[in-house]
C-alpha cells in the first residue's frame, strides 16, 4: 500500500513536470518531446490502475501516432522567423 503510493507520487511528479514543460518550454520540438514523456507516464498510471489494455492503446495511439503527427507538423512548419523560436 505504501509502495503503491510512493510509485504513484513519483509518476505523478513526472506527469506534472512534463505537462508543465509542454506548456512553458519555448522550443516547440522540446515541447513535443515532453508531451511524449507525459503521455508515457500517464500510461504507467493506467497500468497501476489495472487498465493494461488502455495503457497499451495509450502508448500505441498517442505516442506512436499522435506524437509522430505532431513531430511531423513541427518539422514541416519550422520557420527561420526570429519571432518563432528556432533552436
Amino acid at each position, binding site marked *: 500500500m505504501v509502495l503503491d503510493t510512493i510509485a504513484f507520487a513519483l509518476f505523478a511528479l513526472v506527469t506534472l513536470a512534463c505537462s508543465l514543460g509542454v506548456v*512553458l518550454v*519555448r522550443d516547440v520540438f522540446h515541447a513535443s518531446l515532453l508531451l511524449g514523456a507525459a503521455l508515457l507516464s500517464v500510461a504507467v498510471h493506467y497500468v497501476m490502475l*489495472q*487498465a*493494461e*489494455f488502455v495503457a497499451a492503446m495509450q502508448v500505441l495511439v498517442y505516442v506512436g501516432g499522435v506524437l509522430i503527427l505532431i513531430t511531423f507538423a513541427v518539422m514541416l512548419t519550422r520557420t527561420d522567423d526570429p*519571432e*518563432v*523560436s528556432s*533552436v
Partner: protein
Amino acid sequence: MSDDPDTRERDGPDEYDVSDRGLVPGLASLLLFGVLAVTILGADFGDPAGLEAGEYGITHGIGFALFNVDLGAFAGSTEGFLAAFFIVAITLDVAIDGALYLAKRESDGSIVSAVGGTFTRGRKAGEGGD
C-alpha cells in the same frame, strides 16, 4: 544568466513571451484547480468495488463490451458499445478524409485553399491588417 543561449532568447523583448500574458490565465487556471481540489477532497465516493477479472479477464471484457458480445460474462459491470464503436469508426474515416482534403494540392501543384481564396488572397505572412 543571459549568456546562456537558452535563456538569452527568453530575456529579450519577444512578442511570443508567455510571461507578459500569462498572469490572468495562470490565475484563472489556479482558481479552477482550487475549486476542483476543494470539490474533490470534499466529495464522498461511496464504496469501492475492486475490478474483478471475471471469467475472461479485463481485456476480454473490453472486447466483449465493444462488440456487444456475451455481456453475461460481465453482467452488471459494463454495457454494450457497438453503436458508439461504429460512430467513432465513421468519425475516424471522416477525419482521414478531412486531413487529406486539407493537405492535398491541385494537379498543377498549386495549393488548394481550404476556406476559399477570399480569405487568403493577397495576404502574406505578418500583414494581417485589421
